[in-house]
């Protein structure tokens, strides 16, 4: 059988556009997901009922619903309630970010809880406020422990970017579909897309293994 990778190479422009789209949604969801996750994680850590319960509901709901369902909800259902349209990028970003926030919230909470109370004592005894203690003493130590898990989250977010193709957002898989339908070469097209993802992600995956090993050695 004839492998026709030539037509794929002719379409590098399309793939580059796709890659740009993938990186864009990855960056948006990484920043939104991980920062919202920190807020929710702090909420989960709090003992104040008014903060803890909504945070828990958020985490349980967005961890236990599939991301694709959320994306489609934001794309098809939400516009009914709002006076404006929601773009594919917005819908996909919302779905992926909220899901990532819910997962990373638990990573943050676990990391913060793992810092021994003596560190809080030391900080408070100097007269630090809660926010200062968190920012200067607790989080810097917790972050080092959370890095492997957060890196895994980032890898998951990168892979989830392909779900945006379900609402026709222009990213790598969507471009792959386009190339395959124009050139009747799904094998080459989808293999190329898979290879591109592998090349992007493999260094990141190896880096997360390295972080995990380093953490186990240091603890």
């Amino acid at each position, binding site marked *: 059988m004839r492998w026709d990778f030539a037509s794929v190479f002719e379409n590098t422009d399309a793939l580059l556009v796709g890659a740009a789209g993938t990186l864009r949604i990855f960056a948006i969801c990484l920043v939104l997901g991980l920062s919202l996750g920190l807020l929710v994680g702090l909420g989960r850590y709090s003992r104040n009922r008014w903060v803890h319960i909504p945070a828990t509901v958020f985490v349980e709901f967005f961890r236990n619903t599939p991301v694709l369902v959320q994306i489609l*909800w934001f794309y098809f259902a939400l516009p009914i*309630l709002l006076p404006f349209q929601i773009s594919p990028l917005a819908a996909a970003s919302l779905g992926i970010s909220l899901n990532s926030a819910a997962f990373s919230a638990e990573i943050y909470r676990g990391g913060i809880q793992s810092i021994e109370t003596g560190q809080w004592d030391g900080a408070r005894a100097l007269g630090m406020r809660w926010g200062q203690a968190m920012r200067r003493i607790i989080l810097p130590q917790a972050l080092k422990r959370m890095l492997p898990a957060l890196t895994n989250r980032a890898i998951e977010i990168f*892979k989830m970017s392909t779900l945006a193709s379900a609402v026709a957002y222009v990213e790598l898989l969507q471009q792959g579909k386009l190339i395959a339908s124009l050139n009747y070469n*799904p*094998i080459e097209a*989808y293999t190329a897309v898979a290879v591109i993802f592998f090349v992007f992600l493999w260094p990141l995956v190896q880096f997360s293994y390295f972080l995990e090993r380093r953490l186990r050695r240091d603890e």
Partner: protein
Amino acid sequence: MAYQWDFSPVLANAPLLAQGLANTLKITGTALVCGVVLGLALALLRLSPRRFLSWPAGFVIEVFRTTPPLVQLFWFFFALPILVGIEMTPFVAGAITFSIQSAAFFAEVFRAGIQSIERGQWDGARAIGMRHDQAMRRIILPQAVKRMIPAFMERAIELMKTTTLIATISYADLLFAANEVSQKTFRPLETYTVVALIYFVVIFLASQVARLVELRLARSGESTVH
């Protein structure tokens, strides 16, 4: 003017949704069973001292963990039939994709579990004359399996969420049914909300069952490993 919610058209299509849910459970169950079996095989191959066995296994595991499941699904549905010249249905494509994809993750759970059994157990088994596979089957695996259950259940719940991808290749699962019903009733808000809630309830219940099992294991003194 506030939006008037009306769930009745959605409820009228309950049979369609129910069928969708049934199909979701069907693909999830199939992928779960195949994934576990394949995952165990991959893990054992990966642990083999013979490189011609462990390297291909490692390759499969890395590829399927480092590429997005949706890309894998499209490849198996669109590309594989042409390559191998077989008939492909959405269900088969989904079953193959999710089986191998979950197997790659299960393999790592199995490997960690097996490696967590201390050397002494191997020594004890070999000292009474057991072969490698006998030791594995009678001594190591039974202990490893108990430790792996929490991570295993976590992966199974992930699988439940991943199988929604099959709606994109027009398999009539719950999400696909949601799309159909939403277009039929012109009520996307109610339809997708109901479907999201159904997914939430099913998966949440599964998580709770998993948590209960974990608690009972912890109480009976079994250690757990991730």
